[in-house]
């Protein structure tokens, strides 16, 4: 009896948690296929389809708005930011975890302090640097600047992953005839691949997510990314293209959510080793 009650309580909690998490996105998906006549009828039940569904808004999103451009720009920015992040953070994290001695051991806090400097503090001077580099209004401004957010975070996360790889593995590789760098590449790196995967997902989503740099550096529609483009171009003054807006958010959210969900355990493991390291 008591066990049954406990079980019911637990699953109630699970359902509430999931509802809380998916509420806006579920409603967004519900909105995408609604006809406008029903959508803007205050008397209709917003959770039902009483007048049938339509693909019109989805088609409009891809044909009548610059959304495909935003999507493509975000994708390009994301890929480059991920690449830069991996190239900078992976060697740095290994160096701090293994090579720099006592100095590296206390580096977790230092990296954290870099991460602590919020974008809101830097966007004004960074805007000037971007202008000086001739990158204003170009997606490359974001490619150059967004790693300031992802590199410290990913270094911190990877530091934990590298620390959880037994030191004897590096040492065995050294004795087996590898140089230190080869030992890192052939032996340590493969152990940290899940961590690097987690970092890539994190870096990608952080690059999509940043709003302040996106709206500050880029004001031309053709160079805008999702974060800056969708709210500015799909909302004209007071006219909101609600179903198309919802389609835009759902299209971005669902694949990213899947990626996160599947990497969930690796993310937890990453934080586990980062916290105890």
């Amino acid at each position: 009896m008591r066990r049954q009650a406990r079980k019911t309580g637990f699953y109630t909690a699970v359902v509430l948690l999931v509802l809380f998490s998916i509420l806006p996105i579920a409603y967004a998906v519900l909105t995408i296929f609604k006809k406008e006549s029903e959508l803007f009828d205050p008397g209709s039940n917003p959770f039902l389809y009483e007048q049938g569904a339509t693909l019109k808004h989805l088609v409009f999103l891809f044909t009548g708005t610059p959304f495909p451009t935003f999507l493509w720009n975000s994708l390009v920015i994301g890929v480059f930011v991920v690449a830069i992040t991996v190239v900078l953070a992976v060697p740095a994290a290994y160096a701090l975890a293994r090579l720099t001695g006592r100095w590296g051991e206390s580096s977790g806090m230092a990296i954290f302090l870099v991460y602590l400097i919020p974008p809101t503090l830097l966007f004004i001077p960074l805007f000037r640097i971007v202008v000086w580099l001739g990158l204003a209004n170009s997606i490359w401004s974001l490619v150059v600047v967004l790693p300031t957010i992802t590199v410290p975070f990913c270094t911190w996360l990877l530091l934990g992953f590298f620390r959880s790889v037994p030191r004897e593995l590096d040492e065995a590789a050294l004795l087996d005839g590898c140089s230190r760098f080869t030992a890192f590449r052939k032996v340590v790196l493969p152990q940290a691949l899940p961590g690097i995967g987690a970092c890539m997902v994190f870096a990608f989503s952080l690059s999509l997510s940043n709003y302040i740099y996106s709206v500050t550096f880029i004001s031309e529609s053709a160079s805008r990314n999702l974060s800056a483009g969708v709210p500015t171009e799909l909302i004209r003054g007071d006219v909101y293209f609600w179903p198309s807006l919802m389609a835009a958010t759902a299209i971005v959210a669902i694949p990213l959510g899947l990626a996160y969900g599947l990497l969930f355990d690796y993310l937890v493991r990453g934080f586990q080793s980062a916290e105890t390291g």
Partner: protein
Amino acid sequence: MSAAAQGGWFARAGDALERPRVLGTVMLAPAVLYIVAFVAVPFCIAIALSFSDATVGDPTISSFVGLENFRAVMQQEAFMSALRNSIIVTVATVVGIVVLATIAVEILAREFPGRRLVQVLFMLPWAMPVALAAITWLWLLDSQFSPIDWLLVQLGLLGPGTPLGPAKHLYYLGREWLGLGSVVFVDIWRTLPLATIIVLAGRLSIPRERLEQAQIDGAGFFRVLLRIIIPALAPVLIVAILFTALLVIGEMSTVALLTRGGPGHSGQILPYWAYLKGIESGDLAQGAAVSLFLFPVLAAAAIVALRFAARLHRD
């Protein structure tokens, strides 16, 4: 062996790279140089700007005006409102996060059928770009078509002759406290997954024997939670609080999209005000002063919190 041992510049460089310090420096250098160029330098420029009279029209940092910008900024009503709201929103979000993350962790730490699906759905808020997430909430909280209002009306809680008033809409984003409350709610909603992952990592590090021992000793669920789990989680809760606070205090898109700092400036927050000042109205110096305002407090708080977390870890 002897072939490789033969001197030459190349071999000597190779041997140098075998020294941990040398290789470590080489591997660390790109990241450090990048961070210096794009974080440290701009940070210094931000400080210089905040003491200058630079504008978009004349962006050179030529004349220094001391604390003039800070003084001017503090006299603006919008700034004081932004400072107050930034603190309120951050504190309220953190409190909400601590409570909800502790609960979510107890759920996700268990094995149950469908756990993978729950993980995917649970991560959705964090996976979405903040601006897009804010838009979905904008629609949910719409002044005319909010489905939440509709539900409340159906439940007899909203509308004429009901506890929540005669109007059929709550106008979440158009009222000062309801608007701020909505911002807090959305901030909790979007940062909960990350905070949960951080705390869950700590929760899974608690040795199972310790929990089982407590159960054997006759402790019930809540006693185990209060006496064993929460004390053991204190260090990671601090990390989670730090992460959440930083994410919330530096993010302007929720406010920019939901309430636009309104009504008036009553819902203003610091980063959005800095953006409006520095970029929209072109006063770089005052914008920098606004955005710098919280940094010393933030840095001090973070250092204290991390020290504390590190000490708890050792015990």
